[in-house]
C-alpha cells in the first residue's frame, strides 16, 4: 500500500513536470490524436514532446512487459497512472489498433519471435496497424468470410476483399482473417495472418460516409504473397484469435466518447439555450434527458472501473466486454443526440470556421457507427443472452 502511494506521488510529479499544458486540454479534432506509423506527422510540437517522453518512459502502453517496450506496470499501478492522467486531463500520447487490438492477441497467441518483432514497434509508434475482418458478405456473420489464402510452398497467396477497414489507407501493416481451408466448417477454416500493406497486390479505397469523412476503406488483395510464418496461432484456428481480439476491440469501443471529461453537458446546453432565474436549463425536458444521461454515464464509468477490477481478480466473464460495448456505444449515441439538441441551429452548420468545419454534426453522425462497428448492438445482446445468460440457441 505504501509502495502504491509512493508510486502515485512520483507519477503525479512526473506528469506535472512532463505533460505539456497543451496536452491537458480536451481534444477538439481528429488531428489531436496521434496514431504513429511510418508516415506519422505530429500536428504540433507539444504533441511530439508528449509522445516522446511517454514513449521513453514506456508509458505509451504502460501495462505491457518491459521486454516488449511496455512500462511493465501491474494492474494497480496502471490504474493509478490512468487516474493521475485523467486528473490533469492528459491526452493519450499514442492511439493505435496495435495497442488496443493486435497487442493483446499477440501477447496471448503470438510466438516469442512475433512478439519481439511487432510489439516494440507498436509501443514506439513506428508501425500503424489496421484490421482486416469484415467483408461485403460477412458483417455480423463474420465467420462466413471468403478471402482466400492458398498454400504455395512456405507462403500463402491471398485473394479477396475486405470492407470497413478503419484507416487502411494510412496503415503500414494489417492483421487479417483469411480462409485457409474452404472445405472445413465455417469457423474451422480461418487463419489470422499479418502482412505489410505495401506488399504487391494490396490496394485501398476510402469510403465516403454520412459524416463527410472517410475513416473506413475497402481493401483489395490480388495475389498477395505472405510467408506462412506470419500466421498468429495455429493455421485454421484463427477464429479463436479473432474472437479474443474482438473482446478487446469491444472493450475499447465501449470506452470511446469523452466520458466524464470537460464541462457537464447541462452547462454546454445552457451556453446556447440559456438558464432560468434559478440557474436551471431553460428547456425542462432536455434538462431531464441530460440528467438521466449523466446518471447513466457516471454509472457506466463505475462499471468500467469494476470490469477492470473483476478481470484483475479473475472474476470477469469473458463475454462481459460485449455488455459494455452495447451500453457504451448506445450511451455515446445518446450523448450526441443531446449535443445536437443543445446546439440547436448552431449545430447544423456543416462548413464554417465558426462551427470548426461542422465538427459537432460530423461527430454526431460518426457516433452512429459505434453500435455497428466491432459487432452490432443486436449481435452484442445475442452474445450476452447465449454466453452469459445461457439462454437456448435459436
Amino acid at each position, binding site marked *: 500500500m505504501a509502495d502504491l502511494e509512493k508510486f502515485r506521488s512520483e507519477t503525479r510529479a512526473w506528469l506535472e513536470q512532463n505533460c505539456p499544458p497543451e496536452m491537458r486540454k480536451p481534444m477538439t479534432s481528429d488531428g489531436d490524436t496521434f496514431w504513429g506509423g511510418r508516415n506519422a506527422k505530429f500536428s504540433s510540437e507539444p504533441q511530439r514532446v508528449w509522445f516522446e517522453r511517454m514513449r521513453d518512459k514506456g508509458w505509451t502502453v504502460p501495462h505491457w512487459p518491459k521486454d516488449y517496450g511496455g512500462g511493465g506496470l501491474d494492474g494497480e499501478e496502471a490504474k493509478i497512472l490512468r487516474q493521475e492522467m485523467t486528473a490533469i486531463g492528459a491526452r493519450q500520447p499514442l492511439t493505435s489498433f496495435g495497442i488496443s487490438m493486435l497487442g493483446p492477441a499477440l501477447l496471448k497467441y503470438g510466438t516469442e519471435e512475433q512478439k519481439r518483432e511487432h510489439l516494440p514497434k507498436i509501443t514506439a509508434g513506428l508501425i500503424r496497424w489496421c484490421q482486416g475482418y469484415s467483408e461485403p458478405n460477412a458483417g455480423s456473420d463474420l465467420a462466413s468470410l471468403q478471402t482466400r489464402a492458398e498454400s504455395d510452398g512456405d507462403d500463402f497467396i491471398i485473394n479477396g476483399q475486405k470492407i470497413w477497414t478503419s484507416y487502411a489507407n494510412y496503415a503500414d501493416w494489417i492483421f487479417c482473417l483469411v480462409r485457409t481451408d474452404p472445405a472445413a466448417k465455417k469457423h474451422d477454416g480461418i487463419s489470422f495472418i499479418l502482412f505489410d500493406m505495401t506488399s504487391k497486390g494490396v490496394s485501398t479505397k476510402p469510403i465516403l460516409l454520412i459524416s463527410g469523412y472517410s475513416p473506413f476503406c475497402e481493401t483489395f488483395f490480388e495475389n498477395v504473397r505472405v510467408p506462412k510464418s506470419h500466421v498468429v496461432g495455429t493455421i485454421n484456428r484463427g477464429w479463436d484469435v479473432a474472437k479474443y481480439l474482438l473482446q478487446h476491440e469491444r472493450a475499447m469501443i465501449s470506452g470511446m466518447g469523452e466520458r466524464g471529461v470537460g464541462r457537464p453537458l447541462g*452547462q454546454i446546453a445552457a451556453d446556447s439555450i440559456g438558464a432560468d432565474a434559478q440557474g436551471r436549463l431553460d428547456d425542462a425536458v432536455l434538462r431531464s434527458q*441530460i440528467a438521466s444521461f449523466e*446518471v447513466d454515464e457516471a*454509472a457506466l464509468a463505475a462499471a468500467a472501473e469494476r470490469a477492470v477490477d473483476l478481470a484483475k481478480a479473475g472474476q470477469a466473464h469473458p463475454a462481459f466486454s460485449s455488455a459494455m460495448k452495447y451500453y457504451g456505444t448506445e450511451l455515446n449515441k445518446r450523448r450526441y443526440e443531446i449535443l445536437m439538441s443543445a446546439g440547436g441551429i448552431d449545430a447544423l452548420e456543416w462548413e464554417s470556421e465558426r462551427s470548426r468545419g461542422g465538427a459537432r454534426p460530423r461527430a454526431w453522425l460518426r457516433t452512429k457507427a459505434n453500435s455497428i462497428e466491432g459487432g452490432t448492438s443486436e449481435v452484442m445482446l445475442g452474445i450476452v443472452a447465449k454466453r452469459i445468460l445461457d439462454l437456448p440457441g435459436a
Partner: protein
Amino acid sequence: MALILTEEQSMLRDSARGLISDKAPVSHLRQLRDSKDETGFSRELWKTFAEMGFSGLLVSEQFGGSGLGAVEAGIVMEEIGRTLMPSPFLATSVLAASALSRGGSEAQKAQHLPKISDGSLLAALAVDEGAKHRPLQTSMQAVRSGNGFKLTGDKALVVDGHTAGLLIVAARTAGSAGEKNGVTLFLVDPKAKGIATERTIMVDSHNAARIVFDNVEVNADSVLGEVDQGYPLLEGVLNVGRGAVASEMVGLSEEVFGRTVTYLKERKQFGKPIGEFQALQHRAAQLYIDIEITRAAVLKALQALDADPANAGSAVAVAKTRAGTTATLAVQEGVQMHGGMGMTDQFDIGFFMKRARVCQELFGDSNFHADQLARAKGY
C-alpha cells in the same frame, strides 16, 4: 480501492445470505401479510440478527457494535432485497444508528447505541411530510417552550414507526420550508403525550406509519446535533439510507431477473422454450446489462460514503437513480415475461413489483435524485 468486495465482505454476504434465505424466504413475508401480523416482522429473527452482529453493524465497537461501514450495510440490505424480508435493519441499524453515531452527544450515544447493538431498541426516522420526499421542505414546527420545544405537525412514511421505541424527528426551529437553515433533529419518545401513530398497511406489506404530533413537549436534551443546524446531519443520514435502499433494489432486481431467466428456459410455447425467442433474449440481455451497471454504481456510492461521506452526494444520487430505474425495469419485465402467471398472487413475482415501487419513493425517487445531480452540476 478496487470496486469489488473484499474477502471479508464476501464472507459477510455469504453469512447474511445463508441466514436470510433460510429463515426469511419470500414465503415469510407472505405469511406475515396473510396473518395480518401486528408487528409486521419477526422479533425472533431480529434477535438472531443481533446475535450475528448485524443490528449493530454501523455502531462503533465502543457501544457494542461491529464498527463496519456503508458497504457492509449495503451487503446486508442486498440480501434483504433478495427475499423481501421485512426487517428493522433499515430504520434502526442504518438510519437511527447513523443519526446517533454522527450527531449524538456522548450521553445520547451511551444511552441508545448499545441497545441498538443488542437488538433491544427499535427506532424510526420521521422526515417525509408530503406525497414526495422533500427533506428541504420540512415544515413541521418545533416552537421553543420553557427549557425545551413543542412539536406540531404530521409525518408520513415513517418506516417502522408503529414499533419504534425511539423516534428521530426532523422539524423546523427557524426559517421556512425550502431553507437549509432552521432544521433541527429531535429524539422523541413515541409514547409522549400528543403523539398519535397510525400503522399504514402498505402496498408492499412492509412496515410504515403516519404520525401526528400535537404540541408534543420535548426537553433541550432531546436535540440531536445542533439547533437549527440539523440539515447537513439529516442529509448525511439520508444518504446512508439511500445507499442502503439502492442496495436493497440491486438484490431485488437480481432476484427477479434470476427467476425470470429460469422461467424463460422452462416455459415452452410453440414447441420450444420461450427463451429461444430473440425478442425475449435481447430484452433479458438488456436487463442483465442494466443490473450490472447499476450494481457498480451502487458499490461506488457505498465506498464513497465510507471514504468521504461529505462528498458522496453525487455518487449516491447516481446510485439511487439507477437502482430505481433498474428495479422498475426488472419487475416490469419480470411480470411481463412470466405472462399470466406473473399477474397471480400465488406467484411471488408480484411481491417484488410492489416492494420496488416503495423503494423508489423511499428517500427520493429516480426523478428527485437525477434533479439533485443536475443541480449539483450547475444546470
